[in-house]
């Protein structure tokens, strides 16, 4: 059971740190991170293992949004991407 977290918005110091701390608090193991900064635009995709998470996906999403209110944040189960892009 894995989920994908995406964070998009204006670059600033500490985005990755805030996201990973929140994940650690929720006991979600980070499996992979890809991030890039193009001009001032920050985009990050993170794959997490939610097997041992201590809260619901909903709550993790809310916590992330509260920590990074100016960024666009999505937390979605990986199956939606697999079913859409893999045959």
């Amino acid at each position, binding site marked *: 059971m894995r989920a994908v977290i995406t964070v998009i918005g204006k670059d600033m110091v500490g985005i990755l740190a805030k996201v990973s701390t929140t994940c650690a608090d929720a006991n979600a193991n980070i499996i*992979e991170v890809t991030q890039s900064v193009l001009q001032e635009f920050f985009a990050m*995709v993170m*794959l997490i293992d939610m097997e041992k998470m201590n809260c619901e996906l909903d709550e993790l999403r809310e916590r992330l949004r509260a920590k990074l209110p100016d960024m666009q944040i999505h937390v*979605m189960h*990986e*199956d*939606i*991407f697999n*079913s859409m*892009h893999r045959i």
Partner: protein
Amino acid sequence: MLNMTDIMETITMIQEENLDIRTITMGISLLDCCDGDIDRSCEKVYDKILRYAKDLVRTGSEIESKYGIPIINKRIAVTPVAMLAGASGGDPVKYALTLERAAKEVGVNFIGGFSALVHKGFSPGDREVIEAIPRALSATELVCASVNVGSTKSGINMDAVRTMGRVIRETAELTAANQCIGAAKLVVFCNAPEDNPFMAGAFHGPGEPDCVINVGVSGPGVVRSALKKAGPDCDLTQVADIIKRTAFKITRMGQLVGSEASKRLGVPFGIVDLSLAPTPAIGDSVAHILEEIGLEQCGAHGSTAALALLNDAVKKGGVMASSNVGGLSGAFIPVSEDAGMIDAARSGALSIEKLEAMTAVCSVGLDMIVIPGDTPAEIISAIIADEAAIGMINSKTTAVRLIPAIGKSEGEELEFGGLLGKGTVMKINRKSPAGLINRGGRIPAPLQSLKN
């Protein structure tokens, strides 16, 4: 491993291009609720709907949150009420009120099935239900009605067509104070599908299992934006390919949500309806896809060809993405629910005649069209007859959902709000078809060979 481009594509589709699951519709058979006493029958109907659908809305919201995809509507479709009314007798409006009460209790957006299937003739209960439609739709908010008046195998029941012209008028009149909204919840079909998850025409056909989950996807905005990215230089073969690929992705999402809902609710998964269903939101329009393909405005000559290409490519892409496809499956062209169609009707680029031609190559029919309030019943009947003839001859579903704007004339507008949108009163041909309509009888079933 998932790559960043794929992930960002999915998110852009949902965020910016209005990709959504339009509806999860639970079909429930009410055949075992029949009782000789209508009050007892209504009680059983209410209990059964509550028993089966009590978790539908909650499950929908859970799936929404798990996958981050909006599920706009949760709905219920039931066995055509005429079948129950035939057994129980009594005033069928009681069934409508029961359905309304059950729908409100479980929290769904609509409940369909105040219906009668009369393509070959009327059986007990059918006439009573049809005559009760105006009262039922004015006394309820969530109940939708439909009547099947024709089919390729049995021809067109012109007595039913004549009746429906009057019933549509009466329904609009009874809800005149409320934008004639009743008529927007009433569909007249030819070749009605038994597993359609879309309203207002959803009902649970007698050939269906006891309970089933059907899913309708949407995503005109995604198709349009894919075409826009490809630019004006690709030829129509490439356009068809792009549409197919996009439809595949959209449908996969429907398949995922449908199978998850079916698993969670413990109900068999019926079908994914591959329809491109527009909403009045900017960027969620089928008309704009046609314009992206290369028309100045929807309704221009060439609209039928562009729509034929679109409709066929959507099916080809979607069919492989889902284990079971059904329902209406095609591009919808509801005039009041599509920002591009609303503009085209307002500017005069789109006429009812052109829409009729377009319905020959797409699902579903003359949908959500506002006509002048003084349109005589026989003209409405004749419009139904024309549309049913197209469906009958071409072995496809066609439907008519007309809204006579009581007290308004050409150029004025009705504002329904929400997904139903708003519509300009369109011009109709006023030459009288009364002679044809008043003859009644049946148009015989067409030949299935010598196709020209």
